[in-house]
């Protein structure tokens, strides 16, 4: 017999067209029976397990599962979610979280400290995806139903860790083994899975969880659909037609158009993701720090920002604004004269030797391509030939691990809102090479990096200072990296949607629960 596609409801129950006229026909403030349609550019879900999930599916999972805390980008601090309050002791090596009362998993089981303990322990045991965030945890205890106590091996800002976009979920371990096929979930969030059809255009639909602890108000969306739309122009046209409500990333031109299109609202938020040009400090022509410094000064940062038209903004240092350790005054500047002098000092230049540099960057990334275009045309004038190779990530990384290029271009963003991620992964020496693709090896720097977590957990001001010092050292003194821009999210929504806030700590995630349809 044939199987039936879609329809968790009986076919007799009529439903109105989702989103079809979300922007125009304002529904009365009564019930919002429209579905909110999100247009991702890739398949949504590849892994339904909240412990191991480490990909796009967090767009949906952040609405299905909840963690103890959530990062608030405005206050730059974690705020309550499943935990209502928390405190640390023993120089950041002991953390106690108080859990919210009366919260239920979608399975009907209550969210207790014991359940949370089991969930985190399972995540740690599976050691997959972003499970490393819990590496510092030595022991978890649940002294009573509402208290969760962590003992750590070393000091760490666990409130930040608990707000991570991945692997921080508290889930119902008694049903989690059944979530693989996407028919059920083990979460406690406002939404639960309605249908999932891998490979279909409308891949996933969510429906409201009626017993959500936050309760439901009229105007909130009780249905959410994910409609996979790989092409930007298609997504834009669907949005204009009101067929989708949210497009996660627009290019500058479409963004500009979105601003002036009736029925569409546009938002722009700087992200926590920045582009890095990692210079090979260990071998090749860039071993010479003067050449690296010259490179830092060659790139036309302002021209690039102008060309990006808001898709990226010039940052300051390694840490994007909105995170601890953001240090103003480290903005890069183009200075061709100085660059030429530095190069000449290293015997390169228009009248001296030709310099040949190889660069690898991500295939298919228009913004990186733009950067490469500008960089190579600038370098050409200085008798520097840039051989830029677009590569797929794993090929690029493979080559990088073998130290096969002079400049490695990549994005970096933290898994939880803590700048430590950049330093420990990218600039702390490691053998074999993993992500420290500038191959920087400096004991003093390593030591300073290792001290960061404890400072963050205990003395934020000291941590801030340490971050500032480290950035100056790495960028100015060692010239191991250039940071051309921090990405900006340029998103568009249908006009009737209210309550949208972009949280850069959770890239591309829309908190559907916070949205209402104007009426």
């Amino acid at each position, binding site marked *: 017999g044939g199987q039936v596609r879609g329809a968790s409801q009986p076919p007799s129950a009529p439903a109105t067209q989702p989103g079809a006229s979300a922007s125009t026909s304002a529904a009365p403030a009564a019930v919002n029976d429209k579905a909110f349609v999100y247009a991702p550019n890739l398949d949504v879900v590849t892994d339904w397990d909240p412990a191991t999930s480490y990909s796009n599916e967090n767009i949906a999972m952040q609405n299905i599962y909840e963690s103890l805390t959530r990062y608030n980008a405005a206050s730059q601090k974690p705020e309550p979610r499943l935990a209502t309050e928390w405190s640390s002791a023993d120089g950041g090596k002991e953390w106690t979280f108080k859990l919210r009362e009366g919260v239920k998993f979608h399975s009907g089981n209550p969210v207790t400290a014991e359940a949370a303990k089991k969930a985190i322990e399972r995540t740690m045991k599976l050691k997959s995806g972003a499970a490393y965030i819990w590496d510092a945890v030595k022991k978890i205890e649940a002294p009573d139903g509402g208290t969760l106590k962590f003992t750590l091996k070393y000091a760490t800002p666990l409130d930040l860790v608990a707000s991570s976009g991945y692997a921080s979920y508290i889930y119902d371990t008694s049903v989690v083994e059944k979530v693989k096929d996407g028919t059920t979930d083990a979460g406690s969030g406002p939404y639960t899975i309605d249908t999932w059809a891998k490979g279909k255009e409308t891949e996933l639909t969510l429906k409201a969880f009626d017993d959500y602890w936050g309760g439901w108000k009229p105007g909130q969306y009780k249905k959410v659909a994910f409609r996979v739309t790989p092409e930007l122009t298609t997504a*834009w046209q669907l949005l204009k037609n009101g067929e989708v409500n949210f497009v996660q990333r627009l290019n500058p031109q479409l963004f500009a158009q979105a601003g002036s299109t009736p029925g569409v609202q546009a938002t722009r938020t700087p992200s926590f993701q920045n582009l890095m040009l990692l210079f090979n400090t260990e071998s090749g022509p860039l071993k010479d720090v003067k050449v690296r410094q010259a490179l830092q000064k060659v790139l036309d940062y302002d021209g690039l920002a102008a060309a990006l038209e808001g898709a990226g903004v010039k940052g300051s240092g390694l840490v994007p604004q909105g995170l601890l350790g953001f240090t103003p005054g480290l903005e890069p500047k183009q200075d061709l004269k100085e660059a030429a002098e530095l190069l000449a000092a290293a015997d390169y230049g228009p009248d001296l030797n030709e310099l040949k540099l190889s660069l690898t960057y991500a295939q298919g990334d228009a913004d990186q*391509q733009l950067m490469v275009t500008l960089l190579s045309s600038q370098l050409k004038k200085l008798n520097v030939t840039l051989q830029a190779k677009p590569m797929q990530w794993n090929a690029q990384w493979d080559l990088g691990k073998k130290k096969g290029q002079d400049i490695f271009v990549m994005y970096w963003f933290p898994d939880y809102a803590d700048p430590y991620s950049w330093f420990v992964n990218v600039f702390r020496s490691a053998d074999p090479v993993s992500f420290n693709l500038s191959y920087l090896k400096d004991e003093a720097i390593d030591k300073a990096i290792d001290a960061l977590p404890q400072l963050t957990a205990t003395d934020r001001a000291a941590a801030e200072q340490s971050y500032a010092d480290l950035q100056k050292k790495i960028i100015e003194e060692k010239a191991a990296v250039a940071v051309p821009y921090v990405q900006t999210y340029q998103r568009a929504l249908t006009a009737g949607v209210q309550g949208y806030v972009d949280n850069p700590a959770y890239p591309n995630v829309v908190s559907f629960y916070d949205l209402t349809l104007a009426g």
Partner: protein
Amino acid sequence: MTVVEPRRRLPRMPDRLAAFGAVLLVLIVASALFAPWLAPYEENDPRPLDKLLEPSSSHWFGTDHVGRDILTQILYGGRTSLAIAAAVLAVSALVGVTLGVVAGYAGGWIRDVIMRITDIFLAFPALLLSLALAVVLQPSVTTVILAIAVTWWPWYARLSASVAASVSTRSYVDAARCLGVPAPVIVWRHVLPNSITPVLVQLSLDAGGVILTAAALSYLGLGAHEPTAEWGLMVQQGQALFTTNWWVVTFPGLAILVTAFAFNVLGEGLRSALDPRRTVIR
């Protein structure tokens, strides 16, 4: 007395399509060759402040997202695209015709082996093979050439094998064998020259297809890459701007269309002149 003239219900069209295609093509090739003299601006000269200017008297085709003159880029890009087409066709014809002619002349198990290999490559989805190869070899113009040639040669092998097989049954081949001419000489002197015409026609029909495929590969980011100017790449970069800045994608798209069209017209014209039947798809 009655004179019956040939019936003339519809006006007869002079069949000058081949000539038309040839002229068009000469113009295209010339414009690519003389790009440095024809181009109004310097190649690959981004001026971010002049980006996305509409077509005007100073930028006939407008400027792209980094402020390069699109006309200039198209003229230079023609060099890449045409060079790719020429190289792909040369490589695949060389491989395909060699194998095909040998298979066609030798017959028997040699033919079987060669044809089975050809079949395998034909059954392998061409674009996937190209894509896979492009991934293996890293994107570059050479990669594009190899990647497309790998999927292209079987057509020539097949075509020339069938033609060579029929040529090999001609009695002048038998006569040459009876005169004691060695097999390689027979292939070179008789079989090859007499099987080449349909291949040549097919080559000109295919050139357009190669340009389109190369464009598609670049479009996917697997072919030519910055700062090489190439039409497919230009389309790829401009594609997301289609609704806001139509000229960025339209002009390179038209360049591809016109060139592919010119090759097709030439090939089709040649074919109707020489051989009405054969068509092989790209």
